[in-house]
């Protein structure tokens, strides 16, 4: 058996600066994004980019930019952008897809199927340039001959940014977005657009409805009801606590009982909402809206 060596972390000494622990706490309090001790070097390298722009060399001084100086709100947003940059590509989180395939779909098809209600609604809230809804569409279409045989399904993909939505609707992607998409799925669900890019097929597009939705818009949020699954990755991090709570209230009411919400892999809902139950799946966590009358039970 080959032994696994611990990867070298060139910036680990920088990350030992106690100011980074404080920066981590501030980020966690503001956004719910968390970096464990072993990943502090990543946080340090993200801060370093912002520090270079601000011409600051001391992490302690940069902490002031994030907390007490006049530019703190803007700086926090710019740092969060650095932290979440490059996070959108298709099949970004295989454990989420596996949890849907192996655990969530069997549960939903069992309970809804028993009622003869064979419809599945999925919402990608904050879909950005569309990688997430297209991933979900490929996953559901692949399951349509298996667990979802005889079912109808659709995906609502929303974002606030018009430009992102336009890109998403066009569905043209380069190698970066497709780097984790298998050759088989590329051939099945994409067509050649130019010599370097592929375009989502009409079949893929046909099950996605793109719409501009501001998650803070109570009126519009009220109309996204009946969801089985909501994915909202790295969106809530930009909201203050009160707004986050209001969005979670909407998500809770928009999900059907027994439905699940997934956030970004480093996001936490701690002290934001306690109506959802945190559920551990292999390699990922999700938030579950228990059915009425649920009183514990552990494993599912």
């Amino acid at each position, binding site marked *: *058996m080959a*032994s*696994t*060596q*611990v*990867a070298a972390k060139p910036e680990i000494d920088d990350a030992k600066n106690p100011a980074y622990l404080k920066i981590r706490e501030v980020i*966690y309090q503001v956004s719910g994004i*968390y*970096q*464990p*001790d*072993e*990943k502090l070097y990543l946080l340090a390298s993200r801060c370093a980019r912002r520090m270079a722009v601000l011409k600051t060399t001391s992490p302690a001084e940069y902490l002031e930019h994030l907390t007490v100086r006049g530019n703190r709100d803007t700086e926090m947003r710019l740092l969060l952008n650095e932290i979440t940059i490059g996070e959108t590509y298709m099949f970004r989180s295989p454990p989420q897809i*596996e*949890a849907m395939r*192996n*655990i*969530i779909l069997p*549960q939903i098809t069992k309970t809804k199927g028993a009622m003869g209600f064979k419809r599945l609604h999925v919402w990608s809230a904050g879909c950005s340039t569309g990688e997430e809804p297209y991933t979900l569409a490929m996953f559901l279409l692949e399951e349509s001959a298996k667990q979802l045989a005889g079912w109808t399904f659709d995906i609502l993909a929303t974002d606030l940014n018009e430009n992102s939505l336009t890109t998403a609707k066009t569905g043209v992607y380069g190698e970066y977005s497709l780097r984790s998409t298998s050759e088989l799925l590329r051939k099945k669900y994409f067509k050649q657009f130019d010599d370097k890019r592929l375009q989502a097929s009409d079949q893929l597009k046909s099950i996605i409805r793109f719409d501009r939705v501001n998650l803070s818009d109570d009126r519009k949020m009220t109309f996204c009801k009946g969801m089985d699954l909501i994915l909202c990755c790295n969106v809530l991090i930009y909201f203050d606590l009160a707004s986050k709570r209001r969005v979670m209230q909407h998500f809770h009411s928009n999900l059907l009982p027994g439905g699940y919400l997934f956030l970004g892999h*480093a*996001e*936490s*809902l*701690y*002290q934001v909402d306690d109506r959802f*139950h*945190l*559920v*551990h*799946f*292999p*390699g990922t*966590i*999700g938030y*579950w809206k228990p059915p009425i009358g*649920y*009183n*514990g*039970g*552990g*494993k*599912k």
Partner: protein
Amino acid sequence: MTTLDQIRPKIKSLESIPAVPAIVHPLISMLQLPSDKIDIEEVVKLVSYDAGIAAQCLRMSNSPLFGRRNTETVRSAVMALGLKRVQAILMGCCMNHIVPPGKWALPATTFWRHAMGCALVSRKLATLIGYPDPEKAYLAGLLHDLGILVNTIACTDEYRECFRLARENHVALDQVEAQILGLTHCQTGKVLAEQWRFSADIVEVVEFHHNASAAPTAKALVSLVYLSDLLCRLRELGYGYYESMGVDLTGDSCWTILVEHCPALANVDLARLTMDIDGAMEEIVGLVDAVFKGEAAASA
């Protein structure tokens, strides 16, 4: 079907393990004395006699998981680790030597990653929730799956079949054991734990870590290890295969039991704890592979 009585003579034969270094027994006897009666210099001397154990102590005391202290001598390693951790290393050493090379039903490194992962998560959780003896939690986590080693030796071929079935069907090992062997690693582990005169609470952990509410006295410790065991199996520190389960830890009866003993558990940020486990995984894998390199090569 195998009965416990059929396996008992095989377990009896594990009483004297020839491969266990001669210094282990006097060391363990000494470490079980009240702390004011332990002669540290004598412990250092005994550890120094065995190159393998001395190297393990040095590697662990230099690992970030144990505070990384740049220790270079056995004496400073023993002082840095503390006597309880030295005892845990020795117990691990006993366990490691009972399986002859080539007999492992699962790769040795997989077993040790889970054992070490569970030990570290148990200690971390214990510290977070104010459990009075985090080092006891560490030891309990390390030893909880002793019975897997017993079953590996007592019925190697059938046990390999158990692992194959568990892996192929993505189910928990103890379920397959009950169906194929007619007994589980919890039952056989208990026999060896008693034979090796483990303390009563550790014996309960070994016997009841899949059924914590049945533990007669050490309910809190057993529940703590049960929850840590589940967390490890859900974070790629399990038995090396995908266990298809979604777990609502806060809805589990063990959670309720542990909250009664350690009310701080109710306020634990589970998402953050999970991210900390993910962050520590690379270190755990690196440490286990470094410590058990020889054994892993022999079992491959």
